[in-house]
C-alpha cells in the first residue's frame, strides 16, 4: 500500500516538474546516476558539486571538469532537501552549511531528489517545518523566468536558465 502511494507521489511530482519547464528523470537506484548526470553535462562545461552526500559523490563519478566554487561554474549538481509533488517544486535550504547561491548563480541547475523526501502536498511539507526554520528555505519550481514584457514568457533571467531533476 505504501509503495503505491509513493509511486503516485513521484509520478505526480514528475508531471508537475514538466509543467514548470524542468527536465526530469527517475532512476530505480544510484547505479545509473553518474551516467545520467554525464548525459546532461555538455562537453567543456564546468561543474560545481558540494560532494557532501552519498548521492552527490556518486553523481559526479564520471565528470572531469569540476570546479571548487559555484560562482565560476556553468552547472551545479547537488542533492536537495525535499520536493513537493503538488507543485513540482524542489526545496533547498541553508541547513548543514548548504549554499543556496549554488542553485542561483550558475545557468544550469541539476537537482537530485531522494524519493523518500518527496511530500505529496504543500500542507505535508509545511506541517513538518520546524518552528525555528533555517535562515533560508526556497521552493524552486522550474528555471527562472519573466513575463514582464507584453506578457511574453522568457525562460532564464537571473536565476538558472535550465533546471533538471533526477529522482533516485
Amino acid at each position, binding site marked *: 500500500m505504501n509503495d503505491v502511494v509513493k509511486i503516485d507521489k513521484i509520478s505526480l511530482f514528475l508531471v508537475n516538474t514538466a509543467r514548470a519547464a524542468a527536465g526530469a528523470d527517475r532512476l530505480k537506484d544510484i547505479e545509473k546516476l553518474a551516467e545520467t548526470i554525464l548525459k546532461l553535462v555538455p562537453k567543456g562545461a564546468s561543474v560545481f558539486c558540494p560532494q557532501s552526500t552519498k548521492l552527490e559523490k556518486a553523481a559526479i563519478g564520471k565528470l572531469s571538469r569540476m570546479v571548487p566554487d559555484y560562482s565560476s561554474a556553468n552547472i551545479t549538481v547537488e542533492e536537495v532537501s525535499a520536493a513537493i509533488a503538488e507543485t513540482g517544486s524542489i526545496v533547498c535550504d541553508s541547513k*548543514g552549511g548548504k549554499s*543556496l*547561491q549554488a542553485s542561483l548563480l550558475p545557468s544550469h541547475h541539476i537537482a537530485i531528489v531522494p524519493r523518500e523526501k518527496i511530500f505529496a502536498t504543500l500542507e505535508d511539507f509545511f506541517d513538518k517545518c520546524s518552528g525555528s*526554520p533555517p535562515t533560508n528555505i526556497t521552493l524552486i519550481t522550474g528555471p527562472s523566468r519573466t*513575463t514582464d514584457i507584453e506578457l511574453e514568457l522568457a525562460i532564464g533571467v*537571473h536565476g538558472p536558465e535550465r533546471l533538471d531533476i533526477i529522482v533516485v
Partner: protein
Amino acid sequence: MRKQTSLNFRANAVRAIADSSLRGVVKKATGTFSSKRNIAISKIADYESLRKKASAVREDVLENLGTYLDAFSSNATRAGATVHYAVDAAAARRTILGILSSHNAKTVVKGKSMVSEEIQLNEYLGKEGISVVETALGEFIIQMEDEAPSHIIMPAIHKSRQQVGRLFADKFGVEYSEDTQVFTKIARQVLREKFLNADAGISGANFAIADTGSIVLFTNEGNGRMVTTVSPLHIAVLSIEKLLPSLKNLPSFIRLLPSSATGQQITSYVSIITGTREDGEMTGAKELHIILLDNGRSEILAGECRDILKCIKCGACINVCPVYRTVGGHSYGWIYPGPMGIILTTLLTGLANAHPLVSASTFCGACDEVCPVKIPLVELIHKLRVRKVSEGFSPVKEKLGMRVFEATARSPFLFSSGEGLAKIFWPVLGSLGGEDIAGRLPEPVKMPFRRRME
C-alpha cells in the same frame, strides 16, 4: 519628488484614451492576465472554500494585528534580524539611510517593492549619493525611463516591445531588437555584476510570518533571491498588514497569490527568510533589517474601510477592471491603480488629494468576483463616495442636483404634471459631465409611461 496627480484623474484618463498604443498593450495584457488567472483557478479544487479560508485568516490577522506584530518582532529578533517600526514614509527613509550610511554602503540592488515606491525611497537615497539599481525586469525598464509603475504586478505593463527595444538599443548600444529573450539576456549580463558587487540588497516581502519571524518572497526571475542572499546586508521593507500567523498558512496563499496574480500555479521561487546567517551556514545575510511601515495603516485599521488591509497585492482586481483597462495605471496618479488603488490611494493620501478617484468606477462588481480574499471592493469605494459627499468634496451643483432629484422623486405633484424625472434631472446630469450629455440620451417621450397607465 514624483508628484501625485490623482486630482487630475479625468484629464489623465482623457489623455490615456487618446493613446491607442497604450490602450492596445494594456487591453492585451489585462485580458491575458485574466484568462490565465481563470485557467489557473479552474485547476484549484474547491476554490471557493479556499477563498473563504484565506479571507478568514486575513480577517483574524487584522483583528489581532498588534499581537501578531509583537510576535513577529520578537521571533524575527530572536533569529537575528533587527526590526524597525516606521510610523511614516519619512521615518522609514531615515531609518534605511541610517543603516546604509553606517555601513558606508554606496551601491544597492533592489527587488520590487510597492511600499518602497510609496515612500519614494530611490529618489531619496539618490540625493544622498547612494545608487539604487532596480533589478526586476519591469522595474529595471521603468527606472531607465524614469517612469512610475502602472500596475502592481507588472510595472511596465504599459510598455510595448518596440518601446523596450528602442530603450535597450539606446542605453546599452546594442542592435535594436523586439525579442524578449534578447532583453532578458542583456538584463542578466548587465545586472549580474551589480548583484555580485552591491554593498546592500533592499527587498520587499509578500508576507511576514508571526510565529517564526520569517519574511516570504514570491519571485520568478531570480533577482529577488540575488538581492536577499548575495549581499551581506539585507534590508526588507514591508507594510504592517502583510502578516500571516504561521508557516502553516502558507499553502493557502501559495495557491491563491500566484494564480490570481500571473496565472501560475506557483512562482519559480518562494523564499522563506528567517533571520541572519548562523554559525555553520553558508547562506543568509550577515545583517538583516526589517522595516515595518505604518504610513497611515493603523488609522485605516480603526476605520470603516479596514477590509482593504486584507489585500495580498495580487492585482486580479486591476486586471478585470473595465476602467483600468481603458485608462491604464498612470491615470490614477499615484502608485496603486484599479479598484484596490482607488481605495488605498484615497485612504493613504486623503480625499483632499485623491477624491476624483472614487468616481472612477461603474460599480460593475467584476473586482469583487476575483478578489482571492473576498474584499468587498465596491462597498468600500461606495463608503468613500459617501465620505466624499459628507466631507465637502462634491461640487455644489451636484449637491443641489441631488436635492432636486429627491424632491422630484418624492413629489406626486411634480409627477402628475406629466414631465417625469427626465426633463428635470437630465439637465442637472449634463452640468456634471460638463458636456452635452443630453446628446447621448434619447429624447424624453411626450407621454411618459405613467400617463398611459392612468
